[in-house]
């Protein structure tokens, strides 16, 4: 919660003094659909640091999803370079990217994407079974206050509960980065706030780099930094001197 003492200071000053987790230079992604060429990303330069909570803000088609996909090892670059902890992701093979996603990245999706045939615990266990240094599924679910819902199937959970299971699934591997694609897009305000609170706590308590994409400008207030995208370019980066407690957010 917002009142909790911060284990680390996330001011931009301290961040910039350290090596970035991600370093993107001139990142460009061009899609060819038929004869039409779409420049989804057009020369993005960006550093992302450990422990930060970053919000990518932009309209539809601004390139924020493409950037998130590229950070998550789901999409490739047309031009530019991207490194993670100094390692080049640009030239990684399919297998290396799979391992990168498995060990490093936690994903949270707009529609939760839980496996309907598995219970909450089993959905989390899917990851903890294959990750190198995972939490217990129970521990991850307890962290999201889902101890009571461990043996429920997705169809027996509300949207907010499903999203919290998805967060538990994402963090159980102790990822270096948590990528959230419109995590509250399918939820009402109250539930949305609960989910954001959970993400915020993961960021504070585990020190995980969190990247949230949204077109909901209100969410930007909870971030250390807000990156504005438009037409595949970063228009500007706003640094919030103080992160607004999630409990105060409303839209």
């Amino acid at each position, binding site marked *: 919660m917002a009142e909790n003492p911060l284990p680390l200071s996330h001011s931009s000053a301290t961040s910039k003094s350290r090596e970035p987790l991600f370093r993107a230079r001139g990142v460009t992604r061009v899609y060819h659909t038929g004869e039409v060429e779409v420049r989804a990303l057009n020369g993005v330069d960006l550093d992302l640091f450990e422990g930060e909570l970053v919000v990518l803000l932009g309209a539809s088609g601004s390139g924020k999803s493409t950037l998130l996909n590229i950070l998550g090892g789901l999409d490739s670059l047309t031009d530019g370079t991207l490194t993670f902890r100094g390692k080049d992701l640009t030239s990684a093979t399919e297998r290396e990217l799979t391992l990168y996603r498995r060990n490093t990245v936690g994903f949270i999706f707009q529609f939760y994407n839980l*496996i309907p045939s598995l219970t909450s615990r089993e959905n989390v266990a899917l990851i903890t079974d294959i990750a190198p240094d995972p939490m217990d599924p129970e521990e991850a679910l307890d962290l999201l206050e889902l101890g009571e819902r461990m043996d429920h199937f997705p*169809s027996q959970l509300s949207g907010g509960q499903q999203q919290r299971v998805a967060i538990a699934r994402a963090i159980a591997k102790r990822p270096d980065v948590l990528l959230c694609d419109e995590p509250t897009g399918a939820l009402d305000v109250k539930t949305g706030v609960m989910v954001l609170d959970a993400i915020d706590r993961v960021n504070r308590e585990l020190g995980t780099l969190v990247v949230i994409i949204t077109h909901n400008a209100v969410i930007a207030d909870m971030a250390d930094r807000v990156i504005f995208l438009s037409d595949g370019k970063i228009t500007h980066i706003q640094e919030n001197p103080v992160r607004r407690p999630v409990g105060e957010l409303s839209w």
Partner: protein
Amino acid sequence: MRPLDLKLFRDLAAMKGQMAAVAMVMACGLMVMIMERGLVVSLETSRDAYYQSNRLADLFCDLKRAPNSLRVRLSHIPGVAVAETRVKGSAVLDIPGMKQTAEGTLLSLPEDHPQHLNLLYLRVGRLPVAGNRGEVVVSDAFAEAHGFMPGDTIDATIYGARERLHIVGITLSPEYVYALPPGSIMPDNRRYGVFWMNERELAVALGLEGAFNNVVVDVAPGGDPTAVKADLDRILTPYGGLTTYDRTEQLSVKMVNDEIKGLRTMAVAFPLIFLSIAAFMTSAALSRLVHLQREQIAQLKAFGYSSRTIGWHYCKFALVVVIFAFLVGGALGMWFGSRMLMVYHPFFRFPVLDFYPDWPAFLLAVLASAATSFLGVLGAVRHAVTLPPAEAMRPEPPAAFRASLLERIGLQKLASTSFRMALRNLERKPWQALFTTLGLAMATAIPIVSVSMGDGMDYMMDFQWRLAQRQDVTLALIEPGSFSVINDMRGLPGVLNVEPFRAVAARLYSGHHKRRVAITGLPQNVLLSRVLDVHGKPVALPLSGLLLSKQLAKMLFVQPGDALRVEVLEGRRPVLHTTVSGTITDFAGVGAWMDIDRLHHLMRESRTVSGAHLTVDSAREDEFFAAVKDSPRIGSITTTRAARENYDKMMGRMMDISRAIFFFFSVVVAFGVIYNGARIALSERARDLATLRVIGFTQREVATVLIGELTLLTLLALLPGLYIGSELTSLILTSINTETMRIPVVLTGRAYATAVLIVLLSSALSFTVVSRHIVKLDLLGVLKARE
């Protein structure tokens, strides 16, 4: 083209692999249907036309000897249209270049008038001219096997006298469509031929001058065949007449009919299996399509398309599959059908044997396939069109799952996560799982039928030749003779063992059931030609009573211990009241056996023999055959090795073709069912699988999740498949087995292993194909889109 039809073809193109798999299974069904039904119709059409145009007789009777003056009496029997008397005998043939002898049946041709019945169908040459010595026409299968043409000659021993036969023509006969050598179970075109020659000459050669020993009768329209039969028997009995029999008991006719009967069974059983699997596959694939397109359906409804139009649109998917299957199955069926007719050629000799597809039956099968597919599709469409458009356009809530039965009973510890997913998916869609399993079980069952049939035939032949008939040669005398012949045989070069037999024609009665068979008398404790029980152990010849073929006991509705009346049709024609002392196992023809001394006693004859079974030193075989060829009293020579070689040659090709077809079927079904199932599962779980890929599962791990479920179904299907295969084998064999040949149900580990291997390999193949689609999973789409 209307927009909906454009959509139809584009959607079909997108799922072409799956549709092709379904269509191929359906095509297999239609192919068997058109092939087997076509063979039935072709054989029936050729048979009926041939019998009619060449006036096959209605009744047949063999007798010992009757004067030609009796002819008039026979033709005056009420109900007789034509009665033709003939002379019939056998010859031992010495073919240049053949070490062993061949055997011929000789039949007379009337000299003063053309044939009235069983008209020859002359292929080449002419009929013998009255008065020309030694002219014969020969059956075309025999001529073909030796390359004989008119002008060639054959040396024959007829009734002990050497004759030179001049071939003047090559012919077919409606009496010998299927020409079975006496005592054999399979045509042997090299070692058996039928010859027709002038009546007077043949009668002289057989010592039947002014007499006849065979009658064929055409019953007048409206005549009562049973009454005619009774009259014939009454008149001919004093002349050594054996029982008159009608067409259905005539050997060649019976063999043709048996073959048609077998084909009929296959024409129903297999198409039914394939078409029902295909119907299920179609409806599963299209239900999934309809499900995926529920939003599109909602939009179409919102635009104002009627439910009926939409329903018909989805039925057209099934229709395209059916039409495709119709074309492929029809073409393959016609092709295989005409190939099969070529395989029939050595066995069945018709003047013309063309392939006639049974279009009505074929169309019926196509319509039935279409109808069952429509039912499946319409079920799914009805669900989709009854949803209000607004609701259908909203995504569906997550599918409801629960812990599977195995877990509910407390076995969850045993199961890995992906195994649990598989179990729960299966339990959520039990019908789909059941039908997939059934389809795979059928794929398992099909090769069992084919391998078991081969194994059954091998078993039968092994039983016949290794256990029962252990002689090298069987010599039959022209007519029964004294025991001294046996001593003469012992003196032939190279002979090691001689065991005599006595065979007499008889009629067995039990209640109103009767049967004409040969009763064979054998010495006790023979080593060569033995009667065996089901385990292949020799059965002791009873001192009273008769041993019957199990099949004969079945036909007479008797069991060991039951009373039997026996009318012997030879010699003094004694009548005997006796019992069935036991049954024996044999697989070809039916017969009855007793102790040879008892038979002599019954016949009130001294030690008369009909022939003997011999073993011959293989080093002196040539000498032996040379000597036998010249011995005047021998009517026929049957060598076991030649019979066995002939069997291998004749059956080999047939078995190879049918094995290839069955193998192909099994692969198509197993591959098709799994591929279809995997594509449906892939489509249903694309989102889950892509999610797994995104969160760090490798392609292989994702494939394991998908394949796990189908592997489980495949493994579940194997056991029932083996069971169904066994049952199907015995069902099919029971229905195609006949009095002439009975293939035993032999289920070996080899058959089961073959089936399991074929299904597992086909499954593996289709997994490989489907795995390629996992690579193409849309990882980015997952993040946004919802099914």
